[in-house]
């Protein structure tokens, strides 16, 4: 049973809502980051919503995904709650990782979300392992790895695909080709016309699809999932898409032209899907707009929640290092806070 059946009208509306939720979440995260509210770095998924939502809709709720540094969209597509995600971006205790992971490391065991990942190309090996686990335990689960075009240059990505292909594992390798690996165009990083040709080297099916079209992504992943659960091994899918924002917020983007951005923006996955639903009589324009307003309200509430949430206690830095703590950590934790609430003391460190 797919997570969102976009053959039905309810499913179509839900898919649209999810994409809008991602857009609104990342728009808000970008603004909050610019205002100095969110620490560290944020990498926005704006423009690529059709890939995340289309793929996760076609997966079953129990399936696994791995994500990237640009992972907010994958999280929402897989059903994670914006409120706890926003708290995580703020480094707050109520975040998915108790404020320890931040934007680039959101994970949720219950949702089958093995984690966003600050290291380019680090997700696919984990997906191969999750798929091996599902196969060994004879579970009807597949593992889908989202990764970028930049990651296709990383050795560990190829090691992961080779293992999954050789062992016929229920894995799906989904490249989001957003045309740039950080600040360098894809054609300057790869010798292939289509990255899906990579599949030939591993003798698995490979397809390049329109990542701006949620339906195309949904269908491709649904077929790949079918193959995986039938024991026919992994599939390599390249979804052509575009990053509307910089590699990271604050990126000056000297590497691309305004015309290119505008051309891709005219193919916005949310607007194009919304107009198709309006044309088909599934929704009216007014309904689309009120859905957008509803989503914006939900995200604004999530941001407010995160702003007001509690920060972790300093001693929590030492939690969850080992199942059973070690003497050094117990010692650090016991002495990590000064009586006056300032920085930790050195006494008997």
């Amino acid at each position, binding site marked *: 049973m797919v997570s969102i059946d976009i053959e039905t009208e309810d499913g179509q509306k839900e898919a649209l809502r999810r994409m809008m939720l991602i857009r609104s979440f990342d728009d808000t995260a970008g603004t909050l980051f610019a205002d100095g509210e969110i*620490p560290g770095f944020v990498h926005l998924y704006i423009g690529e919503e059709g890939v995340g939502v289309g793929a996760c809709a076609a997966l079953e709720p129990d399936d696994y995904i791995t994500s990237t540094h640009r992972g907010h969209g994958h999280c929402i597509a897989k059903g994670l709650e914006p409120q706890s995600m926003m708290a995580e971006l703020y480094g707050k205790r109520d975040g998915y990782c108790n404020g320890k*992971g931040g934007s680039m490391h959101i994970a949720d065991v219950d949702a089958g979300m093995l984690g966003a990942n600050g290291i380019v190309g680090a997700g696919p090996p984990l997906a191969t392992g999750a798929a091996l686990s599902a196969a060994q335990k004879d579970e009807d689960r597949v593992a889908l790895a989202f990764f970028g075009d930049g990651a296709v240059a990383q050795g560990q990505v190829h090691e992961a695909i080779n293992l999954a292909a050789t062992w016929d594992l229920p894995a799906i390798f989904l490249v989001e080709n957003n045309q740039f690996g950080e600040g360098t165009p894809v054609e300057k990083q790869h010798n292939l016309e289509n990255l899906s040709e990579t599949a030939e080297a591993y003798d698995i099916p490979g397809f390049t699809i329109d990542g701006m079209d949620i339906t195309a992504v949904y269908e491709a992943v649904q077929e790949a999932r079918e193959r995986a659960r039938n024991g026919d091994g992994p599939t390599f899918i390249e979804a052509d898409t575009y990053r509307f924002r910089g590699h990271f917020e604050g990126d000056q983007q000297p590497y691309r032209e305004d015309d290119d951005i505008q051309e891709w923006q005219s193919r916005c996955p949310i607007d194009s899907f919304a107009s198709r639903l309006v044309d088909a009589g599934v929704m009216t324009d007014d309904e689309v707009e009120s859905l957008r307003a509803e989503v914006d309200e939900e995200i604004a509430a999530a941001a407010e929640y995160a702003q007001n949430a509690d920060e972790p206690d300093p001693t929590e830095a030492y939690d969850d290092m080992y199942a059973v703590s070690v003497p050094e950590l117990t010692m650090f934790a016991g002495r990590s806070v000064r009586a006056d609430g300032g920085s930790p003391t050195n*006494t008997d460190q």
Partner: protein
Amino acid sequence: MSTTSQTQNLTLVQAVRDGLYTEMSADEDVIVMGEDVGKNGGVFRATEGLWEEFGDDRVIDTPLAESGIVGTAVGMAAYGLKPVPEMQFSGFMYPAFDQIVSHVARLRNRSRGRFTCPMVIRAPYGGGIRAPEHHSESKEAFYAHEAGLKVVIPSTPHDTKGLLISAIRDPDPVIFLEPKLIYRAFRGDVPEAEYTVPIGEAVTRREGSDVSVFTYGAMSRPTMEAAEELAEEGVDCEVIDLRTISPLDRDAIISSFKKTGRAVVVNEAPKTGSIAAEITAIVQEEALLYQEAPVKRVSGFDVPYPLYALEDYYLPNAARIKEGIMETVEF
């Protein structure tokens, strides 16, 4: 060190760029390579303008492939080029760790000197920028633990340029870690001309007689702040900026310790197994009878580098450094 009357007032990251520019101008075998180092000028702008000046062949934009970048640099170095690969963050170096340990460090010894591997692997390191884990950690001890590598960590614009030029000219591989917290924190006078600062030589930033405080990188500033504050309270600290952590300047460490009999090491790495432990061992081995107090380590803790809410508790600051020094002085 050569000197010149012409100086510029540069930030630390500008001094990196100036050092690269100077050596690339002087030696056409010097090649800068890495992720977004060309047209984009590097994520921290350390290579700004080099691509325009030296072109595609000398400033190479690579795919995102750290293992491939460093592995390729090994072959380049073995056959006559002087690669200066940039790792975008030191936390992104681990895919290249195999190449660094298995080949960069060992090629000379393994080939009994027939091959050498002169390269400089540059990477921004360290915390204080509100990002967790890979983007902020200090894992210099990994590289100091591997014989065959030199590990350099400057703390001023002047030293940055001089040490970088030394590193590029060095016949052996150098891991050059740049404290990104102070990339733009202040400016300093940097000669326009070429000059070198020797690798393996510490510098005394403040002479004192009560206690020796050893530090490096971004921790040099809060350490100096602590020392100046303590001077007003009647404690005379000697502050030694190590500048190179492999090979360590053992003479400087031992002679300062023999003078004061007390030592504090300040760094932001996790405490266990860090370079502070090595300095502690050196003074124990070489100057035990001069010792007046236990060696104090003011450091990070044994956890992954935390996100911002906990960062202030993790990173040593002047107050913590002062406390560590006083504990040693009052022992």
